[in-house]
């Protein structure tokens, strides 16, 4: 079987006359943009699930890109690469990471852990940052070193001046960086603690800096799907923190974003944007994941509501006062695509993608048929999204519905190529125009 199915269990429940009916999966295109269709939520006996089995890339296999572009493996053999970051000298940092072992709090955690591991989610992370350098300018790295080792589930990285910030799952760390160095042995300064703890359900800490470098922003995911671990473990979570670099003063910049896994400043408006993963288990079309500009002090609903005032009945006690304040996000990406990384396209050498946002969609589990498993481009005009998402890097699933890879992070390197980190495929991909291809014959 190319996909593991839990339908037999659902059939058992169906025998007991409470079958898992509910929403039919809607085309993702009905849930793009500022006004997605939101059906009524459904409480399932067994939610629809489908996890493509992670099988890896065969020799010479690559994802698929539109005509005029080419994609090559920049480097392979990573340990669960989640994010790629280009330093000013075009050295590339690849963050290899996975979450700390989560405790089994309920029987469901055990079952779901096994199920999602089929899709490669449980592969061990390197807990390190690897540096790649292209010495001779042929687009392929010639030097590969372990840049920083022994990190605690790192995710976000940003360089401001000579300060390299790394968002580990439990702390924001600052390392001294000198241009051109290939390994940092210095002990980091602990800038601030970040919410982690025993459960640490959504462990990634996304990170970016304001354009002037004065502020840092950290995305902190919720500690549950929908507060099933209690509201008291959600303190400081499902939020974007703002940290003043000079003073270390920190505050919650915006809240109610369930799992903000990618942050970045829109280059024209200089406004902070985030991609976020919305809640599960109330239907294949609920709730759409999104990209949004982030207004200071704004509340985006989680856990009490979604897309404004759509109340989630699974959360008690309810908070009508907060629901009244909740604002909808700007741009729906459709349900369960799992955006795990984003980058604005400024600086790219692909003119058709000159002004917009790339989003790496890791792909769904809580939906059948699956959704995501690709990198999309959201065109922008005047600092706002101006059209539906376009497929850029696809082909992560094979004809049998198995996952050869799953995109997690996107970045633009200093030559203008699009880089894609692929955690299930343990590869970093590089997308360039065909015309700008290295002269070396592509033997792949």
């Amino acid at each position, binding site marked *: 079987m190319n996909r593991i199915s839990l339908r037999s*269990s659902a059939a*058992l*429940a169906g025998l*007991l006359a*409470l079958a898992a009916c509910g929403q039919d999966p809607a085309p993702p295109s009905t849930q793009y943009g500022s006004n997605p269709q939101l059906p009524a939520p459904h*409480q*399932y*006996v*067994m939610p629809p699930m489908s996890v493509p089995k992670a099988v890896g890339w065969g020799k010479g296999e690559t994802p698929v890109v539109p005509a005029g572009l080419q994609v090559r493996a920049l480097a392979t053999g990573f340990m669960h690469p989640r994010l790629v970051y280009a330093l000013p000298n075009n050295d590339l940092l690849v963050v290899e990471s996975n979450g700390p072992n989560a405790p089994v*709090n*309920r*029987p*469901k955690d055990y079952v779901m852990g096994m199920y999602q591991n089929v899709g490669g989610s449980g592969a061990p992370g390197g807990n390190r940052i690897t540096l790649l350098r292209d010495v001779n300018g042929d687009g392929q790295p010639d030097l590969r070193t372990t840049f920083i080792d022994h990190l605690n589930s790192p995710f976000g990285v940003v360089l401001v001046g000579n300060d390299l910030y790394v968002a580990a799952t439990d702390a924001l760390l600052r390392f001294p960086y000198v241009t051109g160095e290939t390994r940092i042995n210095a002990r980091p300064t602990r800038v601030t603690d970040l919410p982690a703890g025993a459960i640490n359900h959504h462990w990634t800490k996304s990170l970016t800096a304001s354009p002037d470098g004065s502020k840092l922003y950290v995305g902190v995911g919720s500690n*549950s*799907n*929908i*507060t*099933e*671990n*209690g509201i008291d473990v959600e303190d400081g979570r499902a939020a974007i923190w703002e940290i003043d670099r000079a003073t270390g003063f920190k505050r919650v910049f915006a809240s109610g974003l369930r799992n903000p896994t990618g942050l970045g400043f829109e280059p024209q408006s200089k406004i902070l944007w985030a991609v976020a993963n919305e809640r*599960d*288990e109330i239907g294949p079309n609920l709730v759409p994941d999104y990209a949004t500009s982030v207004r200071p002090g704004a509340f985006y609903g989680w856990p009490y509501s979604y897309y404004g005032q759509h109340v*989630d*009945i*699974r*959360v*008690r*006690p309810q908070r009508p006062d907060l629901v009244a304040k909740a604002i909808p996000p700007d741009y729906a990406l459709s349900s369960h695509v799992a955006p795990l990384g984003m980058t604005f396209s400024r600086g790219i050498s692909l003119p058709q993608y000159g002004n917009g946002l790339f989003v790496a969609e890791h792909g769904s589990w809580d939906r059948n048929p699956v959704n995501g498993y690709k990198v999309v481009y959201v065109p922008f005009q005047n600092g706002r999204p101006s059209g539906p998402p376009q497929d850029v890097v696809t082909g992560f699933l094979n004809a049998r519905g198995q996952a050869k890879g799953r995109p997690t992070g996107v970045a633009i390197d200093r030559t203008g190529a699009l880089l894609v980190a692929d955690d299930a495929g343990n590869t970093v991909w590089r997308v360039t125009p065909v015309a700008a291809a290295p002269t070396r014959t592509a033997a792949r």
Partner: protein
Amino acid sequence: MTETSRPVRPRPLLHPHFVGAGAALLIAALVTDLLYWRSLLSAWETFSIWLLTGGLILALLAGIALLFDVLTGRVRQIRWLHFGVLGAAVLISILNAFIHSRDGYTAVVWQGLLLSTIAAILLLVIGWHGWSVAEARPFQSAPSEGIRT
């Protein structure tokens, strides 16, 4: 139908121990459901799903023990009404475990709470008559009628 005239030394039934222990856990799940409903503390909800899981594992062991009782000639007669009611409580509890695996309030209120209540009532009614779903062979090991299979 099989007949045997071989004298059988009577031995106690094994399965009632498992039935009783499992029923205790499934009934306790109703209590923790009620505590969750009134307190909204997620820890009680977590208690409920573990109690349901433990109760169902013991139900499985009870089934195996009953089979063992039958195969080793300890059983004179299955009480089919008791068996059926306990079986219904188990099936309801399986469904209830799925309901309780939802996240948040709807894992308990109202469907979970309703199923826990029905299962607890069925178990208590049966438990009033003891946890055995079979009659043991009498202690005098005279030639006896066979097991109805």
